[in-house]
């Protein structure tokens, strides 16, 4: 789900003051609650998204997708479609001039299926016509003869199944070994956990416009979150030099995973090149569900060993990720799942086997918190089991094992960043519980099942559960996480040029604040993104908060030096002794006072800078290595009401404490945390894209139930720990992913407490939350 742009839910508590009482929050620069520049246009509906674009003489595209999850293609006959009036071009795998396969990370996915279909909805052909209905009818008129094969839908059977792909069915195996395999604990608990398939379900479906260029190249206007990678793979498939392909990023209507699905960007570009006309496509919700990547469905087996006091001795686990038909981001997701399989706890001995395997299920890929979210639900389930078995309070057991700075992860990496795990947990534990509804008029009690539902107070049990979660920030295992930014100042106005895509995560607001802070200039604009700018990398893992904002700061500082150097020289002092506020330059002693405009003297100042965090290394053959740049932590206390006869669940309150390094924009930060928690509640209670033998059953938003405003609980931000991470620019940690990771586990823990049932599957099915009423 992605209720991401500024859609604040009802926060029970505003951000607690940090600088002590009395400190006025700034209105500009770092620490200000600057609103997004595009908020008004988005609210009024005038903000342009890709689906709103238009070009003179444009054609409409439609993609023919496979109805089968696994089939051999015997023949494709496009003659009927090509002869239809109004159809201008039909393309199949034979019409791909360059590489026939692509991948954002692993090149293993065909542009169009040629011999074999590996998942339901895989693109087979595309049509351009002068009307969208004609294009759809023509796509439906393409005759494809299939030899339907038995789909491999159980990831456990993928190991022994016939290879679904020339690369084999095993995408990656990580056997993490850390410590002594023979040691055992006084107490052992075991569990089997299953996590469903969450869809990023962006509020705006995929859309794009491809425009051919006179030089034989093509421009694609779309909501890409990684434009340079998309340009490179598109150029390779089109058989063009990368500078002949330009991706222009339009407004992004929600992104909690990778956008846009290249499976429709590539056909668009091919059709535009083929017809010489602009070609547009706006995907239906069904195509959107079929095309883009989902969260990995995961099967987890765990065995926790602890001593009699509840201190963890050893964790053994098996983690199996269902990658679907193509590798995509599965390797990174698996690394996160294996590395964080024990959670933010001190574990002296750990043996974690992780596999990512190919199946004929819908494709999996990057969705916020991938890998880390699935294992969090499992290790927190284990901690609850351990607490029950030992008779220790679940929060106390977690405190006894909590990780802190200087501890070592099972990957052998030392935690060097702030890790205030125990402080976070105490904060959510000690905040008062929400009032029981019996103390308020019954009319105000929103029961599970909703205001017109069947809930009955006598059957409702309240539960309280805790979860701790962790996630890595930035790309892992040796990814080059560089970003480049340019700052330009002219006539008292600053412009930031950076190819970091604003996905709703708030980068453009942050970039304005950084420039305001460094240059004292109030009016800052952020330029639209295209691939003529230097690359800034994908909008994932909070990297733009870190590297792109860091690059903007460096560029702004370079401009500041260019601006102040002549003045400093003239007055014989260093630039550090000059400061810029409200467009005025003053020296420390007040001798010099001038305005920025005067100092600029009509000149234009430009500076470009890069930010590149310290390098990481891949996990080795036993899962060891310093694979992560930084880690973020979060503690959540969930309070739920469960109707134990119907098994219906309502989350009443989520109290969250998070390690954020430094608050750069308080209201934006609160929005990010609320959005993350709500996405997590979806994964915990209702979001599961179900399949029957590999075929998606309900690819629509009626069958795929996102949380509504009635499902979103009171979100109470109890504490934001500001311990600056010294290696991060500004000391700030990206904040969006860790609430997604932690909140499903917290909801499951609370339902466990309310019902006494084990809760080992997400989303929680009603029959799993039913309990005897006589308790």
């Amino acid at each position, binding site marked *: 789900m992605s209720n991401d742009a500024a859609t604040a839910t009802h926060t029970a508590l505003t951000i607690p003051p940090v600088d002590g009482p009395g400190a006025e929050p700034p209105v500009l620069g770092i620490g200000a609650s600057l609103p997004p520049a595009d908020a008004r246009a988005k609210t009024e509906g005038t903000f342009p998204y890709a689906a709103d674009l238009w070009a003179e003489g444009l054609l409409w595209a439609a993609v023919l997708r496979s109805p089968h999850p696994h089939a051999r293609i015997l023949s494709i006959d496009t003659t009927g479609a090509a002869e239809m009036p109004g159809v201008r071009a039909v393309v199949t795998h034979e019409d791909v001039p360059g590489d026939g396969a692509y991948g954002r990370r692993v090149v293993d996915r065909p542009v169009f299926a040629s011999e074999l279909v590996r998942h339901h909805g895989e693109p087979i052909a595309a049509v351009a016509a002068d009307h969208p209905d004609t294009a759809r009818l023509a796509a439906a008129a393409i005759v494809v003869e299939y030899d339907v094969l038995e789909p491999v839908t159980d990831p456990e059977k993928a190991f022994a199944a016939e290879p679904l792909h020339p690369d084999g069915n095993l995408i990656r195996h990580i056997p993490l070994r850390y410590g002594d395999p023979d040691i055992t604990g006084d107490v052992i608990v075991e569990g089997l956990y299953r996590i469903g398939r969450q869809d990023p379900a962006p509020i705006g479906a995929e859309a794009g416009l491809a425009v051919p260029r006179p030089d034989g190249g093509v421009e694609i206007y779309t909501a890409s979150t990684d434009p340079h990678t998309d340009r490179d793979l598109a150029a390779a498939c089109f058989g063009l030099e990368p500078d002949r392909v330009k991706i222009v990023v339009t407004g992004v209507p929600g992104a909690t995973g990778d956008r846009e699905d290249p499976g429709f960007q590539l056909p668009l570009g091919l059709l535009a090149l083929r017809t010489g006309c602009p070609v547009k496509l706006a995907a239906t919700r069904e195509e959107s569900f079929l095309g883009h990547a989902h969260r990995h469905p995961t099967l987890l087996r765990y065995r926790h060993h602890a001593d009699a006091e509840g201190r963890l001795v050893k964790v053994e686990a098996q983690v199996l990720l269902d990658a679907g038909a193509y590798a995509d981001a599965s390797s990174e997701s698996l690394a996160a799942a294996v590395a964080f399989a024990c959670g933010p706890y001190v574990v002296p001995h750990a043996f974690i086997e992780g596999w990512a395997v190919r199946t004929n299920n819908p494709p999996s890929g990057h969705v916020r918190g991938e890998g880390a979210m699935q294992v969090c639900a499992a290790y927190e389930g284990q901690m609850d089991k351990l607490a029950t078995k030992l008779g220790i309070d679940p929060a106390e057991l977690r405190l006894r094992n909590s990780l802190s700075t200087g501890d070592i992860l099972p990957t052998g990496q030392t935690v060097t960043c702030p890790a205030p795990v125990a402080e976070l947990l105490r904060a959510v534990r000690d905040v008062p519980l929400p009032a029981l509804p019996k103390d308020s008029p019954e009319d105000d009690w929103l029961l599970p099942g*909703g205001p017109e539902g*069947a809930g009955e107070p006598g059957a409702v049990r309240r539960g309280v559960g805790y979860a701790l979660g962790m996630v890595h920030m930035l790309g892992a295992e040796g990814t080059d996480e560089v970003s480049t930014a340019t700052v330009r100042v002219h006539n008292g106005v600053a412009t930031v040029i950076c190819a970091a895509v604003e996905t709703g995560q708030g980068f453009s607001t942050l970039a304005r604040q950084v420039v305001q802070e460094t240059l004292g200039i109030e009016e800052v604009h952020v330029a639209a993104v295209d691939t003529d700018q230097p690359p800034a990398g994908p909008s994932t893992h909070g990297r733009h908060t870190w590297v792109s904002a860091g690059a903007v700061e460096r560029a702004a500082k370079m401009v500041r030096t260019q601006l102040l150097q002549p003045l400093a020289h003239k007055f014989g002092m260093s630039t550090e002794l000059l400061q810029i506020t409200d467009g005025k330059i003053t020296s420390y002693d007040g001798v010099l006072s001038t305005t920025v405009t005067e100092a600029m003297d009509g000149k234009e100042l430009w500076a470009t800078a890069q930010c590149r965090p310290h390098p990481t290394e891949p996990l080795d053959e036993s899962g060891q290595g310093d694979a992560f740049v930084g880690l973020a932590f979060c503690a959540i206390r969930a309070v739920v009401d469960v109707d134990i006869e119907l098994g219906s669940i309502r989350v009443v309150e989520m109290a969250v404490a998070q390690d954020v390094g430094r608050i750069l924009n308080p209201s934006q930060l609160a929005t990010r945390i609320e959005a993350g928690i709500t996405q997590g509640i979806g994964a915990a209670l209702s979001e599961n894209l179900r399949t029957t033998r590999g075929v998606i059953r309900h690819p629509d938003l*009626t069958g795929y139930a996102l949380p*509504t*405003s009635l499902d979103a609980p009171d979100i109470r931000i109890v504490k934001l720990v500001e311990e600056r991470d010294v290696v991060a620019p500004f000391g700030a940690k990206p904040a969006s992913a860790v609430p997604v990771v932690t909140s499903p586990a917290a909801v499951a823990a609370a339902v466990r407490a309310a019902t006494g049932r084990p809760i080992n599957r997400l989303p929680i099915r009603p029959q799993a939350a039913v309990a005897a009423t006589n308790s």
Partner: protein
Amino acid sequence: MTTHAPQATQTVTLPASLDEAVAALGAMPAAVPVAGGTDLMSAVNKGLLRPSGLVGLGRISELRGWHYQDGHALLGAGLTHARMGRPDFAALIPALAASARAAGPPQIRNAGTLGGNIASAAPTGDALPVLAALEAELVIAGPDGARREIPVSHLLAGREMLEPAELIGFIRVPLLHAPQVFLKATGRTGPGRATASVAIVLDPARRGVRCAVGAIAPMPLRPLEAERWIASLIDWDGERGLAPDALAAFGEYVAAACIPDQPPLADGGEAPPLPPAVLHLRRTVAALARRALGRALS
């Protein structure tokens, strides 16, 4: 050759009265009547339906309200869920009002109509179990001012169908002046499709309890034996209350009637148990029926 022109030729007529609408349908047999469009347009958008013409019913004001006739309310088929959810309607037919309020988010309730709910006949249509429990009759308008009446259950079960150029004009519902309850179970707290729903209607004049279970079968189910049994236990002239055990037994009776056990095997062996998901559905129906009757009698 361009295909823009033929795509645009779609006839839309907007009749002002029920008879005009019937005439328009008669003149253009391929046209589809459309009221709120909440189901129809989703089918069009999915490409399942490509109507060559539409007869819009939104301007027929006689269908958008109700009037009274011999102790019955004659509800216009164009009544929206939003209108039925209002307090004045709830005072007349409480269960239908409750089902209308539960029938989706406000945007759907503002557009979707009672007649459309019947015509779509989706298993999860929230008004349908209520109409089945009320034993509502449909007034069908035909060509040349013809009117005929059929029970709503006959249409939902496919025993009687609408003929070409016929429209659901009105729904005749008895005014019982007694408690009625509609309850539904869904997958989330926000609006959602029912996994099961139960409507309970008391009919003190005939000393009857009428119950219908929705969403678990293609049409609402009536557990007639359970209705007769529980009606015989109620002291109609006194307090009307029932012991919790009796309510629970009614819930079980209804659930077992609607979701029966598997039949014994042909070789006389023991019947296989119901799958866990079906057992959960049966428990849900039992709880809903018990709660609904309890609320109706309280």
